[in-house]
């Protein structure tokens, strides 16, 4: 199987299908910062403008609808590049402009570290060199 940086749970995919039926093609942009930060924001394509400062992590396949691209700012990606993320769904309502909030649901990121094999296959380069930081003690 081909390695990927992103995945989606069945519950999240189901809601994406419902939302795409209402709002048309969708995309994600991972947020940082306070309040509803560190969460994925879902928008109809065209509402949020990505640019040169963003990294395209991949596309989520959602049966019957356009694939859903997932983006993250390049500065944040530098810290996440060894993480595999799965977009999941929980009860909630967020507080940004994400499209699912009125449904009483909130998309959420589940994370795991990519394996060495996945890192090699995806061709991920090492992080910007950080200073050596041994664990305290």
């Amino acid at each position, binding site marked *: 199987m081909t390695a990927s940086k992103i995945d989606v749970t069945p519950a999240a995919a189901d809601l994406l299908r419902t939302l795409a039926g209402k709002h048309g093609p969708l995309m994600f942009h991972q947020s940082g910062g306070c309040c509803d930060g560190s969460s994925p924001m879902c928008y109809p394509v065209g509402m*949020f403008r990505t640019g040169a400062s963003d990294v395209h992590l991949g596309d989520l396949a959602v049966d019957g609808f356009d694939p859903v691209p997932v983006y993250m700012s390049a500065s*944040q990606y530098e810290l996440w590049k060894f993480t595999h993320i799965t977009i999941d769904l929980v009860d909630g309502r967020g507080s940004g402009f994400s499209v699912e909030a009125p449904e009483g649901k909130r998309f959420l990121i589940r994370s795991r570290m990519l394996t060495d094999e996945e890192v090699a296959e995806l061709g991920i380069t090492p992080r910007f060199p950080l200073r050596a930081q041994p664990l305290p003690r």
Partner: protein
Amino acid sequence: MTMYADAPAEKAEETPPAAGPQVYAAPGAEGSVVSYKPRYDHFIGGRYVPPAEGQYFDDITPVTGKPFTEMARGTAKDVDAAVEAGWKAFPSWSRTSPAERALMLTRIADRMEANLEAIAVAETWENGKPVRETLAADIPLAIDHFRYFAGALRAQEGGVSEIDHDTIAYHFHEPLGVVGQIIPWNFPILMATWKLAPALAAGNCVVLKPAEQTPASIHLLLDLIKDLIPAGVLNIVNGFGFEAGAPLASHPRIRKIAFTGETTTGRLIMQYASENLIPVTLELGGKSPNIFFEDVAREHDAFYEKAQEGFSFFALNQGEVCTCPSRALVAKTIYDGFVGDGVERVKRIKQGNPLDVSTMIGAQASNDQLEKILSYMDIGTQGGARLLTGGERADLGGDLTDGYYVQPTIFEGTNDMRIFQEEIFGPVLALTSFDGFDDAISIANDTLYGLGAGVWSRDGSQLYRAGRAIEAGRVWCNTYHQYPAHAAFGGYKQSGIGRENHKMMLDHYQQTKNLLVSYAEGPMGFF
């Protein structure tokens, strides 16, 4: 807590049983000091208006996880009506005298002070924070904020520049018009006040959208003060970001938008502002370092206790503070002892019913917030960080069993880990050590953000040098989590644009009118 000088006044006649801790009854329950209405509409043009689409949504208390009122679900039509109402009020409101506007702000403050206990209990019920915080910090700070901007407005002056003997430049402060404000859920009333007080003082009309998690307490406050505010000067549209926030932020007839929240929405708001060519102020959070230098542990005295409290401040407001000191940097030479004492102190933090005045940490504001924090516990462990205390959801049993409670948590690790770099917005501390001044500053600045920071030392020179070297808009020196109205607050780097608090905030809600006047009697001589 020393966030505010005056302790809240107790209402003697309502003192519950003398023995044991004082626990407030839930709003609406028998013996409660406050009740929410069963439903809140939008407040537009000085009156309550049902939503154009006729829909409502439940407002849930994080204390029990159960709904307690319902809110109008706003859409673009409601936002249009609110902006229209604002412009209708603007011509007369913008021409009121500074004295008149300042008087309105001080009257709002007085009304809040007279109802402090009711507002505080209501705020706790909706947000989940301990009532001792709302009584001693949130609401007193909000009251003081209105008074501060009443005073700042009266003391504000324009400018007169003498260009030459016959030519004078007058500089006047003029309001912007109708402005949009999007409020976060972590300090619903205080954050609304931070935006409202300077905007109203400066003569603007406001369309405000509260957070969808915490829309009701602002309406409860509004009920107490709405007779003091001319119709249309303050309009409140409830609803979800996608349905009401985006139409407000992108509205072609607002003259400014202010937002507190996260970076992706911040970018989206700037995008809208670029389309309408209007100014923005953004406060987008941080990953604030809290640095403890070696001399902190030179003696185990009152200062050491103060620094230990500073170490524990990550748990204030359940960690749901943009400036949460979520990274502790402790000098390697004192690490074991200082951290050992700190962990013990954190273990003594009393978690419980937010309405109990002895509770120190309450509930996270929402279920999705709870889930996100728990996902970061998993990220911390997977990333190789070592758990020193906490690490799980807390089940408080009884009525509170479905509430959103998280144990105060400390992870030890390194600054390149995701839990050191991403804002969790929960009571989760990422702890590491440093080796000397330069290392401390280097770790502190190795972040995308720059909102708050803390520095602790007995050496004033070291405090000063560290404070200047840290790339953050607010550096607390030998203190933390104080928010006086007269100190500027805002972010460096990706933490935002603009400031809140301080009289400079009036400038963020004003534009400059220059009258360039010639008093010369004759022509300039060109034609």
